[in-house]
C-alpha cells in the first residue's frame, strides 16, 4: 500500500533522497505546470464575467505548481522509492511497432502494416524468431481483414493503391 506519511522503516527515512518517488513526481509536476503556464500565458484571461481561454489553464497551472512544490518539499519525509528499472527493449520495440503501423497504414495498407508491426514489435519478447513473426503477422492480418474489413466494414486502407 502506498500512501504519504506512513511511518517509514527508520533506516530508510530521509536517506537516498535522489531515489524518492515524491522528488521525481514533484519535479515532473513542476516541469509540466511551468510548460502549461508558459504556453497558455497569451491565451487571454477574459474580462468580468466572461472568462477567456487562459483562465482555467492558469488556475490549474498554479494549483499544479503548488502541488509539485509540495511533493518536492516533502521528499525528505517520504520513503517510497522510484522503480528505476526501465525495460528499454520492450519499451522501444513496442513503441516502434505502433509507429510502424501508423506510418505504413496509409502508404502500404492494413495487411502490410500489420505484418511489419508484428516483425518490429516481436523481438520484445524472448523466443520469437523472424520466421514465427512473419507467420503470425500474416495470420493476424488475415484475421483482422476478415473481422474488421469483411464483417464490420470499418473504413481502413487495405492495400497501397
Amino acid at each position: 500500500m502506498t500512501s504519504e506519511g506512513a511511518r517509514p522503516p527508520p533506516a530508510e527515512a530521509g536517506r537516498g533522497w535522489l531515489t524518492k518517488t515524491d522528488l521525481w513526481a514533484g519535479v515532473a509536476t513542476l516541469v509540466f505546470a511551468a510548460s502549461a503556464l508558459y504556453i497558455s500565458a497569451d491565451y487571454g484571461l477574459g474580462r468580468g464575467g466572461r472568462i477567456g481561454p487562459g483562465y482555467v489553464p492558469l488556475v490549474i497551472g498554479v494549483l499544479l505548481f503548488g502541488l509539485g512544490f509540495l511533493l518536492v518539499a516533502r521528499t525528505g519525509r517520504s520513503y517510497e522509492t522510484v522503480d528505476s528499472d526501465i525495460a528499454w527493449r520492450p519499451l522501444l520495440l513496442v513503441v516502434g511497432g505502433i509507429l510502424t503501423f501508423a506510418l505504413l497504414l496509409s502508404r502500404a495498407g492494413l495487411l502490410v502494416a500489420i505484418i511489419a508491426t508484428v516483425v518490429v514489435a516481436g523481438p520484445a519478447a524472448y523466443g520469437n524468431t523472424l520466421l514465427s513473426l512473419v507467420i503470425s503477422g500474416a495470420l493476424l492480418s488475415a484475421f483482422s481483414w476478415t473481422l474488421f474489413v469483411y464483417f464490420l466494414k470499418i473504413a481502413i486502407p487495405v492495400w497501397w493503391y
Partner: protein
Amino acid sequence: MELFGQLAFGFEQALTPQNILFCFIGALIGTLVGVLPGLGPVATIAMLLPITFTLPPVAALIMLAGLYYGAQYGGSTTAILVNIPGESSSVVTCLDGHAMARKGRAGAALAIAALGSFFAGTVATFIIAIFSAPMVWIASTFQSPDYFGLMIFGLIAAVVLAQGSVVRSIVMVLVGLILGLVGTDITTGQSRFTFGIPQLSEGISFVALAMGLFGVGEVISNLARTFGKPEVQPVSSLWPSREEARRAAPAVLRGTAIGSILGVLPGGGALIAAFGAYVIEKKWSKRPQEFGNGAVEGVAAPEAANNAGAQTSFIPLLTLGLPSNAVMALMLAAMTIHGIVPGPKLMVERPDLFWAMIASMWIGNLMLVIINLPLIRIWVMLLKVPYRWLYLAILVFCCIGAYSVQNSTFDVMVMAFFGVVGYLLPKIGCEPAPLILGVILAPHIEENFRRSLVVSRGSWWVFIERPISAGFLLVSLLFLLAVLLPAIRRGREEAFRE
C-alpha cells in the same frame, strides 16, 4: 407499477434477435479478452470499441454492456484458476477462489462466482431502475455552479476513496484536466496546447489516450516481467455441494448490498466494492480462520459485490453525466461516439435508449452465465497461449482501434505516446486512473465554471451562495482534510492493507 412498465419498455427495445446476438458476441469477446492476462476492463473496452462503430446505438450499447460484464467476469476466471487477477477487482477473488481451486473445488468456485454475479447484477439492475427517476429529478434542479461543485466533488472523492498517494493522485487529475482542454476553445475559438498540430484541434482522442495508458503501458510492463508457465487448476464438476451453496447464499446477499452502495460512490465501483465485501465477510464470519484457505463466502461475497458495484456505478453516469471511475469515463466516451450524451436529459428525451440500456445490462449478465459456465474449458485453453504471441495481437488490435475512431493515423501515434507515459507513471508512484477522469471531465468543468461566472459577473462567491454547490464543495474539502489528518489517514491505510 410504473417501474415495471418502464423496464418492460426497455426490454421491448432491447430484446430483438439481432440485439441478443450482439449482446452474445459482446459478452463472448469481452470474456475472451478479459481472461487474457494483463488487460483490464478499460483497455479491453477501448480495444473492442471499434467493433460497435457500425451498429445502431441500441445494438452498440447492448454490445458494450456485454463487453463490460464479460471483461469483468473474465478476470474472475483467471483469478480462480491461475491465481492471476485478470483485473484489479478480482484481486480479492484470488485469495479464496484459488485456494478452493487447489482443493479441487475450482468448478464450484466458478459456478458460485457466476451465479452470485448474476444475482447481484439482477438486483443492481432494479436498483438503477428505481433510483434513476429520483436522481434525474434532483439533477433537474441543478444549475451550472451545482454541476461544477458536483464534478469537483466527484474528482476529489474518486481520489480519496481510491488507493495511492492523495497528493500525487490530485496531480494526476489536474494533469488530466489540462490534457482535456487541448484543442479549440468552443467559446472563443482559441487553439489551446495544440502546438500548431491540426489533428489536435479537436482535442486528444480519448480512446487512443485510454488505450495507450491502460493497454500499451501494461503490455510493456508485462514484457518486462518474465512469465512462468501458468499453472492452471483443473476444473471438475461445476456444481457446488449443498454445504457450499448454503454458505454462499447469505454471503451473496450481503455482497450485493455492500456492492450496490459502494458502487454509487465516486471512485468506487467494482474494486472498492469487492474489498469492502471481503473485509466485512471475514469480520462477521464464525470461521475467520478459513478465509484465505478456500472459504466459500470469500468468493461469493466479493464476486457479488464487484458485479453489483460495476453496475450501480452507472447511476451517477446515467443520471448526472458524472463518470465515477476510469471504466465509466470510457463508457461515457463510447456513448458520446454513438451520439448519446448521458445525463439528466437522456432519460427525458430518449427514454427508449435509457431503458434499453438498463435492460441490456441485465441481458448482458444473463449472457455471462449462459456462455461462461459451459465454455469454461475454452477459457482454460486460452490461458495456455503464450504471452509472446498474445501481446502482438493486443498491439495490432489497439492500433486498429485507435485508428478507426476517426480514421486517423495520428491517433495511433498519440496512443504510442501515452503508452510510454502509462509505462513510466507508475514508476514514479503515479496512477493513470485519476488522469483519465480529469481528461473526460475537463470540458464539462470548464463549461460550468464559465457559465457560473457569467451569471455572477466573475465572482467566485457564486459557488458558495448556492446551497447545492456549497454543499458539494464543503464535502470535498472535508474529504481532503480527512485524508490529510494523520489519525484518519492511518485508518484508511489499514483499510487498504486488508
